[in-house]
């Protein structure tokens, strides 16, 4: 409860018209972002605990950290860029089944990845370069130059599915070659 109150307080402060419309002074805007960021971190603790309860069989006590990469919108994620093997868990907040494409920023060092669904079946993966403009974006601290794309199918309502990402034994990742058009 304590963790959630941090976000509640941030959202309470941000009922102010300035926060909603963005007419606050710049330093105030930075402080709002700071409060929200701390709120997200605190909520992350609650989410991780909840997901662990959902995901881990009773009695299984392997250490499990669950990160939400909040910078995916600028194609940046430390886990997918630095870990060779990791699990991507998608939680569906809707009350109906959905499918969606997932994009994971990874270092484009050429090695290929295999992605398997919860039943261990391989899913189709495509490696697409991150656009040049994004790789040069000020404020983006990431080595990722390509993104893994795969489709998460039939995420259960108010439920989750986990996909296992690991290096593939294919030597080179067939990055989609540009049919360069100018």
């Amino acid at each position, binding site marked *: 409860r304590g963790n959630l109150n941090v976000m509640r307080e941030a959202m309470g402060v941000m009922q102010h018209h300035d926060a909603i419309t963005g007419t606050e002074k710049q330093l105030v805007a930075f402080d709002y972002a700071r409060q929200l960021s701390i709120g997200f971190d605190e909520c992350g603790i609650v989410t991780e605990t909840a997901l662990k309860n959902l995901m881990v069989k009773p009695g299984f006590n392997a250490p499990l950290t669950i990160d939400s990469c909040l910078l995916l919108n600028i194609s940046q994620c430390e886990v997918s860029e630095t870990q060779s093997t990791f699990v991507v868990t998608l939680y569906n907040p809707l009350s109906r089944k959905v499918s969606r*494409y997932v994009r994971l920023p990874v270092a484009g060092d050429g090695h290929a990845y295999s992605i398997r669904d919860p039943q261990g079946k391989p899913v189709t993966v*495509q490696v*697409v370069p991150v656009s040049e403009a994004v790789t040069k974006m000020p404020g983006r601290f990431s080595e990722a130059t390509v993104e893994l794309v795969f489709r998460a199918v039939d995420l259960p309502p108010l439920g989750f599915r986990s996909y296992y990402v690991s290096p593939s034994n294919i030597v080179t990742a067939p990055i989609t070659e540009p049919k360069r058009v100018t």
Partner: protein
Amino acid sequence: TRYFTIGNPGSMKLTIDRWTGLPTHLHGPDLSDTPNFQQSFCYYESAVGNNEESKNRSSGAYIFRPNSSCVMVNAQPTIKYYKGPLVEEVHQQFSSWVSQVIRAYRDEDHMEFNWMVGPIPISDNLGKELVTRYSVYQMATNSTFYTDSNGREMLKRVLNQRPTYMPQLQEPIAGNYYPVTTRIMLKDDKKHFSIITDRAQGGTSLQDGEMELMLHRRMLHDDAFGVDEALNEQAFGRGLVARGTHYLAGGSSDSLAAERRLIQERVLAAWTFFTPTTLSLAEWQ
């Protein structure tokens, strides 16, 4: 060939002109014709006033007041085209501060426009307010368009008019801008087109068949409504960079309901979590 088409059989497709780097035609699964289609970026120069009396206000945090027609960023972006089993992408570079990736995913019946804007240049001492325009020609929309009200019902908007009185608009552009929380839409008797946004933006339709949404602004003058600062956001010592996504959906008028599902799936998208592991797949399972 000069033209190539992205998208999948049975869903929305887009024809791109190699020479201009811009889309030219839209093919919809249940569209009787393939209307001419154009998407581009342009910016309004911000008005600068002395703010003493109401008619001489600067454009700023509280006010959108353009001081020019929309200046095209670049009518001929360079492009790269990637095609694979899951997604086709056209990477467009309009300028050093405007780029976009147009994506067509397999088995999805809408187009994704992943735009990135900034830092907006101000070396000419001009504030700029960047918008994106989607034009579906041959649509007779009678100066009418629709914007959602906080993600709920669609409100009808008519250019230069108000539902309950006849306004004398002093600002012909800003006076026709409305809040768009998740969707702006055009429709005629046969088809409709919507742009679904990933955040609240200002939007309008200044011409039949055209939808315009404001993506990013950077001004150098305060508008004297109290904040006493120009809306000139910085990050890492440079102008702020904004990146976001628009989804172009559309087709015959009876596929309108399907869009609500798409909006739900985008606005309440599945959350993504990452767990580093040394377990093997079998152990993980």
